[in-house]
């Protein structure tokens, strides 16, 4: 494998790992190990949630560096698992360029769950969280319906590349207004547990926890980036939810 090919595959794997929501140290570690197992020296990897920079020298050649910019991130733990296995295999068996490419292609064509299932699972998650926070059956059904529709809205907005802040404003607005509507129409007695249950699919609790983990682990920049991201998402939901709540307040709710 040539140095160019090595940096290409290692960056490719690192980039995918970061996109499917791997921790910063895992991304850095994966690239480092792959490069090391092909006898690269002076390996330096720097990863933050939006960028990866890798640099190494090999066989007394001039140092080689590459930068990757990451625009879109989501949580895809199945993909993370597969990439992790691939990474281990590369380090252990020193696969050649063509077979790594083939394995990556196999991971690509290996599709996830069908959309309808993801949609129902989102609704189901919201419904069970509504139960968990003390809601009854009717509240849970309301959350399920709300979140199934919300999932389609988010999917559409992602499709037309709307920014994250706006998506969360719309999400917060939608959840708060449907909950208040159900409350006003007398379908549900209390709206709090329905709002909390539904909003669990939007709130950045996991991002906030991961941000603090990164900060403790010493990846200060990555931690601050995630922290800011969490704040932005929370602000978006708050702004969205504020509108129906204040209207309800004005109308004497």
């Amino acid at each position, binding site marked *: 494998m040539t140095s160019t090919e090595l940096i290409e595959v290692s960056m490719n794997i690192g980039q995918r790992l970061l996109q499917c929501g791997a921790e910063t140290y895992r991304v850095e570690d994966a690239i480092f190990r792959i490069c090391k197992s092909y006898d690269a020296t002076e390996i330096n990897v720097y990863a933050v949630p939006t960028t990866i920079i890798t640099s190494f020298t090999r066989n007394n050649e001039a140092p080689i560096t590459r930068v990757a910019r990451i625009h879109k991130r989501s949580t895809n733990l199945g993909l993370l*698992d597969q990439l992790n296995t691939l990474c281990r295999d590369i380090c252990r068996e020193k696969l050649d360029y063509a077979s790594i490419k083939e394995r990556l292609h196999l991971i690509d064509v290996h599709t996830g769950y069908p959309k309808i299932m993801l949609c129902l699972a989102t609704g189901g998650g919201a419904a*069970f969280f509504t*139960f*968990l926070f003390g809601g009854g059956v009717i509240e849970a059904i309301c959350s399920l319906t709300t979140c199934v529709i919300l999932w389609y809205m988010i999917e559409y907005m992602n499709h037309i590349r709307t920014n994250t802040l706006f998506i969360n404003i719309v999400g917060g607005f939608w959840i708060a207004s449907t909950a208040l509507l159900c409350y006003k129409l007398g379908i549900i007695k209390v709206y709090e547990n329905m709002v909390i249950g539904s909003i669990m699919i939007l709130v950045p609790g996991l991002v906030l*926890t991961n941000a603090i*983990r990164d900060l403790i682990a010493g990846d200060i920049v990555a931690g601050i980036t995630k922290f800011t991201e969490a704040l932005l998402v929370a602000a978006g*939901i708050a702004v969205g939810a504020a509108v129906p709540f204040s209207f309800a307040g004005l109308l004497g709710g």
Partner: protein
Amino acid sequence: MDEIIYQSLMSFFACICFAVVFQVKGKHIFFAGFGGLISWLIYLLAATLFPDSDIPRYFIATVVITIYSEVCARVLRSPVTVFLAISLLPLVPGNGIYQTMVYCIKGDTVQALRQCIFTVGIAGALAIGIVVVSSIVHLILRYNHIK
């Protein structure tokens, strides 16, 4: 007691749903969901130990599920995150973030700040719980490796 079992079961099903949303495959879904059950169960049971404060309860629940996730990861040969991220979901301070913004909207700054600090405190307790356990696991593995 019935209430505790009921809530833990709901947490289990919620985590299974989220495991599907996060594209977890096969039998990993069940183990990730079971982590969610354990986390909420420990959180509720710890109420008898720490009746006055919430943060130690979150910490203990996180310690237990991090150990559980490390074991699952070793046995099922998968990254720890797969189990940890999902088991952690019932504990993450979604409610705290929500309450913070409700107080913000109402213009009650004092309560909003109180809630905000409490929320960051919970997130900190979760993060420290994870870091402590994974560092200890790392130390033990290193020690066995050197020996």
